């Protein structure tokens, strides 16, 4: 699984470059983001603009990443397509994660969050 990272101000933008974020890549995805957190990044933006589909394994990975950051940093999701948004709404995870329309909104959310 490929991903791109970019540092903007204090936020680290993490963009998975994969059409389906499913069980076959869930563990690698989680470990790649966890490694970034391990390196001391505390303001993370996950950009899903390149992703069409997220399955339940990746939702599990996202929750576990959120838990690992709790109290120590911020995790913001952005650029979710209609499918992914519907999945977050169905599972009520849209109330657990900070979800932004795009990168600039996500960066603003990080800056507001201190």
């Amino acid at each position, binding site marked *: 699984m490929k991903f791109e990272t970019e540092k903007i101000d204090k936020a680290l933008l993490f963009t998975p470059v994969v059409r389906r974020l499913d069980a076959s890549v869930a563990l690698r995805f989680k470990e790649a983001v966890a490694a970034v957190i391990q390196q001391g990044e505390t303001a993370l933006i996950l950009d899903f603009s390149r992703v069409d589909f997220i*399955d*339940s394994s990746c*939702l*599990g990975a996202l929750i*576990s990443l959120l838990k690992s950051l709790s109290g120590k940093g911020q995790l913001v999701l952005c650029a979710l397509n209609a499918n992914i948004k519907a999945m977050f709404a169905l*599972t*009520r995870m849209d109330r*657990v994660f900070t979800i932004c329309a795009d990168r600039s909104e996500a960066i603003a959310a990080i800056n507001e969050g201190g």
Partner: protein
Amino acid sequence: MDALPPQSVLIVDDALLYRRLLAGLLRQWGYQVFEAENGEQALTLLAHEAVSLVISDWEMPVMDGLTLCREIRQQLQDRYIYIIVLTARDSVEDLRVGFAAGADDFLRKPVNQVELQARLHAGERILQLEGTLASRNRRLSEALTQIQQDLQAAATLQRSILPPHHLRQGDYFADWLFMPSAWVSGDLFHLFPLDGKAVGFYCVDVAGHGVTAAMMSVAVARQFLHGRTVDPFLFDGEAVTPPSQVVRILNERFCAQHPEVTSYFTLVYGVIDRHSGEGRLCQAGHPTPFIVSDSGAVREIGEGGPPVGLLEHLDWDEYAFHLAPGERLCLYSDGISECENAEQQMFGAARLEALLASLHDHSIEALLAAVEQSLNQWRGKATDEAASAADDISLLVIERQQGSTGETHEI
């Protein structure tokens, strides 16, 4: 088969004197030496003797050195034999042809002793490496066999917790479609009696696949079984526990057991009053169930809710519904709605709803067969093809029948 310690060397040369000279030298160096006059003799000998190093002349009568190389590579595939070809030739094209035939190395005639010893040592190193690889491969293949046996056992166990077909609880009849994505799946469903007044039902989808998912689905099935017997949290003898309360109990139990979020599940759990058809259900991350009326009208029941085992201390909403005689309550896993066709389009909830609505006057059995066919068509698979979907597919259809007098089977 392990590469044998390369102390045994076979020398193949039709020139007797030269062969003897070489053999004497190798014996001095501590090798056990076999001799052959040509390729054919060499092959016969290799079939019986544990030789892994061959020094062969190129030009020989009956069978030359390159033919011998090809025959060794073709006939003796269970062990690696390191072949050094002796030759007076040294053009690049000769080398290319020799390597292509299966030679590992070349040695120019007349043979220099120091060079011969160096090349023998190089060959031994390769054979040692080969031996290590072979034994590692053997251990891997043994482990794979063990894993496959365990998977098969897990699949059998998982299948054993699925209910029988044709479930009947008084006026309520249910049947299901199940297409696992791999050998082992994490989907689960049931229609069961709670007491004389109510029936309960659930549809579960454990996140992920494989043994971990199957084991978790067994743990969930146990909760629902024990919840009616030794640990009656579904029904306390007087009242049926509200579905949202049941889901909350399950969530606290599974969160406590799995603090690391390696696995969680989505479900719909609900109860229906047998006589009135009044029901309540709790939706926990599972696709929204829907009712198909006897005229083919569809209404969805539920607006979402968090999955179970992800986050502690959550609350769930409950959705009320009424199932009239002739109506069908349909519950399905996201393996159906997220089933992709060749153009990477998803089957979608709307298509499933429309399909079940169009089949409202068919028997449930015919309806399930049509859904299976439709999904296989969508995936571009023939119905009899064993190719599995990307995710587990399950569909439970519960029908309230018109005052039928079927017996209740306590399951």
